[in-house]
């Protein structure tokens, strides 16, 4: 068995197989258990190849790099800890309608109760994203940055 004919894992760096959906993930990372779960789930989803975690704070100030990432993504996924939906609101103010919004408390997880995260809760949030539980009923609404209301047509 030579190195050339050994099966490789897509986790190895430099392998970008075609066929996957390019997703960008924004977590609220709020100061509660649910908020921190949103961030931990985004990290886990990134490791599992679901998408790439991105900086929600950068989106709030519309840095050029984050704007470019949003524009080149196939889907935008938002994970909020609670129904206040801070990450969703930040996205919308940046002119982005998420394709999917997961709200941690909608999954039966309490907002508070300390900052210790359980693997079970992380798995619940991660599975919800993979199952598309937060998918919008009007999936074609999302349009990239600008916020001008043109639906991306002027970009």
């Amino acid at each position, binding site marked *: 068995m030579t190195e050339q004919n050994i099966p490789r*894992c*897509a986790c190895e760096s430099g392998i970008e197989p075609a066929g996957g959906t390019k997703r960008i993930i924004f977590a609220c990372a709020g100061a509660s258990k649910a908020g921190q779960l949103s961030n931990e789930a985004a990290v886990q989803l990134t490791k599992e*190849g679901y998408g790439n975690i991105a900086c929600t704070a950068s989106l709030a100030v519309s840095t050029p790099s984050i704007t470019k990432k949003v524009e080149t993504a196939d889907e935008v996924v938002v994970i909020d800890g609670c129904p206040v939906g801070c990450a969703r609101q930040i996205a919308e103010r940046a002119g982005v309608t998420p394709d999917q919004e997961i709200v941690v408390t909608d999954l039966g997880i309490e907002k508070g109760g300390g900052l210790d995260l359980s693997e079970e809760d992380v798995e619940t949030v991660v599975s919800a994203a*993979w199952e598309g539980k937060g998918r919008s009923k009007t999936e074609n609404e999302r349009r990239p940055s600008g916020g001008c209301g043109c639906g991306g047509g002027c970009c």
Partner: protein
Amino acid sequence: MVLVEVFGTGCAKCGRMIKNVEIAVRELKIDAEIRKIESLDAMIERGVMLTPALYVDGEAKVVGHVPCVEDIKQILLGEK
């Protein structure tokens, strides 16, 4: 019965592939046998050079990335 084979070496992506397949099979309520294959020799024998990989009834359906649950359902229903 549908034979669903997941080839992977045990990383996070391979683990998720198995979980997503299990969810899809459960939700579709289909009769399926799910096999997790971690042996490199078995992969080489089957021509799998990039993991994770999903085979359904012996046919390669997904190679090198993890499909979401909905995509797996469509594959199992023959819609993809």
